[in-house]
């Protein structure tokens, strides 16, 4: 197929954004529908990509290469493997769901909001498709600006503090990453004597596989990249921006933050930091594993005491993402697949939870757990859905959340049993904070606060159901047939482990 399908997926949202820019802001409904249509087209294209992708094919598929700044060997180079295909589809899926979920809540400056959201999608898909380090960096930074605006303009009361914190944290990491990327390219340039391929990921990976990056250089470059990605994941102790950003962002912003933006960090570690600097990755594996376990347990414990629904889910993300980094750094095929499953699942489950909390917020303008109570009687459909996502998040077998965490346990048990024991302990904590929260919100007598709202407490609308249902269906499907995802990961897992220097197994 000669169709540049990756470029189409990356830039179709931009076309939609430009079209919306030309529409008059006095027609918010037209703008909303155009944005949704654009994101659905992008989604459709990504499904085509998924269908056309060959699971058995080696290396990167649908490659597109063009010279961009030949003086420095910077290319416009896109390509996908099984991992990036999954993440691209996750992104496009969550984007249209988020846009649909923004129809009612976003009432001011709809035009700017939708443009921001579509540009955000360009950046996110671009990050997953870029195979040139420079291009990757550009897409990476492109994600920052729309999210800054989305939190800062359409967010909650404390939005300005939250958005500045988000930007500054991310920027410190990403600018150091830029230095590391340039230094990597320069090291390649001095070794080969030409800038050709100095930013090309495949060239650099071959260069790294030959052991051409010195150990000292690897340590510095890895640390810079690791910092950038660890802030994004976010790993303990770089997570403090997350609860603020999640809490203050509008619902759809939280969905994308949790569903995709956090994954950018994990993806960066898997795709770039480890394969390019394997020696350093091994040197730092233990401290990172320890930090991951701390994040898993710490996130869970802090979640228990959160008084705010969104904040609770935000901290649970810290815990869940700890499983991802743990799965990556124990360097085993099982744990790797578990980590990726966890990435996809967390995107769907936490995305769904944020959507559901957003619905309650729309009706009550409050998220305080203590003021809720008895929602099961008032909003039966909503409560059913909420309970379903909570069980999925707690890792109930049969739903997708379980499989990912289970695989990470197995992989890390082989590596060092105590890690798995500690992490499994956190699952008990997860059940505690999730079920206790559900109990306080869903069960018991209807609280005075909820009762006082009277007729405002209507159950889910059809639009809201349309945002939740696909996610719920996928959670069941992937819970029963995790092979649907795992099939994509066999190849990338082998390549990853080979690049990380742990045999070709």
């Amino acid at each position, binding site marked *: 197929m000669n169709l540049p399908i990756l470029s189409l997926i990356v830039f179709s949202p931009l076309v939609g954004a430009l079209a919306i820019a030309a529409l008059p802001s006095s027609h918010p409904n037209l703008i909303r529908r155009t944005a949704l249509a654009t994101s659905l087209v992008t989604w459709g294209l990504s499904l085509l990509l998924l269908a056309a992708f060959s699971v058995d094919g080696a290396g990167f598929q649908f490659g597109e290469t063009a010279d961009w700044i030949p*003086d420095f060997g910077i290319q416009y180079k896109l390509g996908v493997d099984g991992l990036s295909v999954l993440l691209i589809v996750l992104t496009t899926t969550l984007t249209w769901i988020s846009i649909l979920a923004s129809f009612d809540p976003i009432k001011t400056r709809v035009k700017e909001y939708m443009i921001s959201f579509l540009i955000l999608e360009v950046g996110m898909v671009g990050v997953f498709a870029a195979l040139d380090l420079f291009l990757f960096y550009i897409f990476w*930074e492109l994600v920052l600006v729309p999210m800054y*605006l989305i939190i*800062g303009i359409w967010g909650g009361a404390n939005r300005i503090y939250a*958005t500045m914190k988000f930007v500054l944290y991310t920027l*410190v990491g990403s600018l*150091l990453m830029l230095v590391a990327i340039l230094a990597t390219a320069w090291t390649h340039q001095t070794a080969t004597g030409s800038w050709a391929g100095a930013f090309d990921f495949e060239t650099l990976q071959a260069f790294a596989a030959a052991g051409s990056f010195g150990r000292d250089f690897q340590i510095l470059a890895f640390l810079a990249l690791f910092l950038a990605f660890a802030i994004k994941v976010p790993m303990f102790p770089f997570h403090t921006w997350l609860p603020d950003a999640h809490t203050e962002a509008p619902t759809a912003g939280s969905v994308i933050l949790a569903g995709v933006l956090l994954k950018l960090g994990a993806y960066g570690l898997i795709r770039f930091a480890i394969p390019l600097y394997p020696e350093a990755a091994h040197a730092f594996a233990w401290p990172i594993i320890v930090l991951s376990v701390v994040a898993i347990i710490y996130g869970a414990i802090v979640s228990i005491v959160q008084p705010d629904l969104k904040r609770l889910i935000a901290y649970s993300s810290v815990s869940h993402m700890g499983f991802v980094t743990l799965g990556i750094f124990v360097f085993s095929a099982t744990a790797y697949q578990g980590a990726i499953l966890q990435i996809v699942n967390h995107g769907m489950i936490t995305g769904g939870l944020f959507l559901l909390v957003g619905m309650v917020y729309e009706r009550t303008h409050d998220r305080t757990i203590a003021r809720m109570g008895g929602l099961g009687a008032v909003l039966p459909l909503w409560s059913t859905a909420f309970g379903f996502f909570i069980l999925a998040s707690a890792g109930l077998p049969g739903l997708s959340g379980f499989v990912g965490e289970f695989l990470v346990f197995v992989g890390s048990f082989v590596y060092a049993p105590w890690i798995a024991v500690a992490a499994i302990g956190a699952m008990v904590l997860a059940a505690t904070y999730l079920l206790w929260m559900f109990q306080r919100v869903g069960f018991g007598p209807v609280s005075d606060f909820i009762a006082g709202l009277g007729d405002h407490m209507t159950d889910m609308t059809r639009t809201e159901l349309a945002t939740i249902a696909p996610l719920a269906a996928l959670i069941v499907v992937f819970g029963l047939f995790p092979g649907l995802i795992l099939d994509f990961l066999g190849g990338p897992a082998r390549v990853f482990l080979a690049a990380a220097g742990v045999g070709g197994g």
Partner: protein
Amino acid sequence: MNWSDLGCIAPVVAAVLAAAAVLVVDMVAPGRRRPALIAALAGLGAVALTVLALAGHVETAFDGAYKVDDLTVFLDALFLIVAALTILLAGDYLEPRGLPMAEFAAILLFAIAGAMLISGAADLLLLFVALELMVLPGYVLAGFARRDPYSTEGAIKYFLLGSFSSAIFLFGLAYVWGITGSTRVDAVAAALIEVAATGKIAPGLALGLAFVTTGVAFKMAAVPFHYWTPDAYQGSPTPVTAYLSVGPKIGAFAIALRLLVAALGPVKEDWLPVLVVLAAVTMTMGNLVAIAQDNVKRMLAYSSIAHTGYVLVGLAAYAGGRDDGLWAILFYLSAYTFMNMGAFAVVAALQRRPGVSSNIATFAGLGRRDPWLGALMALFLLSLTGIPPLAGFWAKAYVIVAAIEAGGWPAALAVLAMLNAAAAAFYYLRVVVYMYMREPAAEGRLAAPGLLFRAGLGATAIGTLAFGIFPAVLTAVGNAALVLIG
């Protein structure tokens, strides 16, 4: 002097004639803005033609005191752009305040004539004279709003510290001349190659170097020689600030290129430590103090100090052995011209009504009051922050590539520069916060700016958007840098 000498300094002569023409027009039609404006723009057009005619030529004039090469043409073109943008942006600001357009344009053209003389100067004395020609009109411009005490205060500070630094610079030149026995740049360089071969630098030369560096650092507004900058920038009429933040700064770096690089290149290892410290202190101080500012003009003044620091990183990379640092400097200065003048232009647009302050509160809700102006300001600020794919990002990236290539201390500077850029995001984005995330203090849309102003603003925006990915620009910068590398 012969005709070919005259041909080489044709742009300078044309600029002086254009300034004179503006004054003559003002005598014929006193106080009328439009004729003066037309004369100034036509004059700039004529200067542009002479610069274009020189493109590609490599010649020396006046017994080697003045050189025309790709670097000269490049810098001339940059000065020309600065002058044209300043004149386009000034009208809307000067008119409501009753400040005369003709005098403004004439003084600016005189300053540009001096700047163009720097860009080709190959003689120490000529460099000094050219520098003075460039900065003296700058003092007048800074105090252009005669009845405004802040303008006068800024001008006095600028004038006193400026003259002081010029004297120091001249003093340093005297030492260099005394040690090397010549005022011609290439003769100085030849003499210094011998000095470098002995491996020992004479105390007199070290002293001269120190004085020259200090003098140039004053004009660049590098810390700790920056004290005039905030007051001069804040006090000056906003279009003048726009000019001061780029024109004299480019001039100062032109001196650095012509003098430090071309003449003192052979002993560059000796000034590397000085540059490293200067760059590190300049960007860090500039950024930290900028964070605390509530006045946008003053904030941009400190930001311009920080940007001087980033450019100095490029110079440090050159001193550390990487010639790429030089073209990174040229690229940075060009990109900075567009984005910084653009930012000041938006400030000027807000201040169209006399009495409107440049306090950050003025920007509250700008995104709603004037969506275009808000969006452009956001663009310039994001570019100054260094967000890809805007001009400011490429500028920083190229400087950092050079610094990493140089390794050692310059590479450490690259890391420091990036940490600084992250800190700088705070104060740039703070303005965006006010524009988009705060309610406007005064309702109602702003009066639409004039046609010329819009043209100038549009040009800065296009420059900021397209500069980084415009290959022709890269080639021009590369050729200009090649002159120095040889």
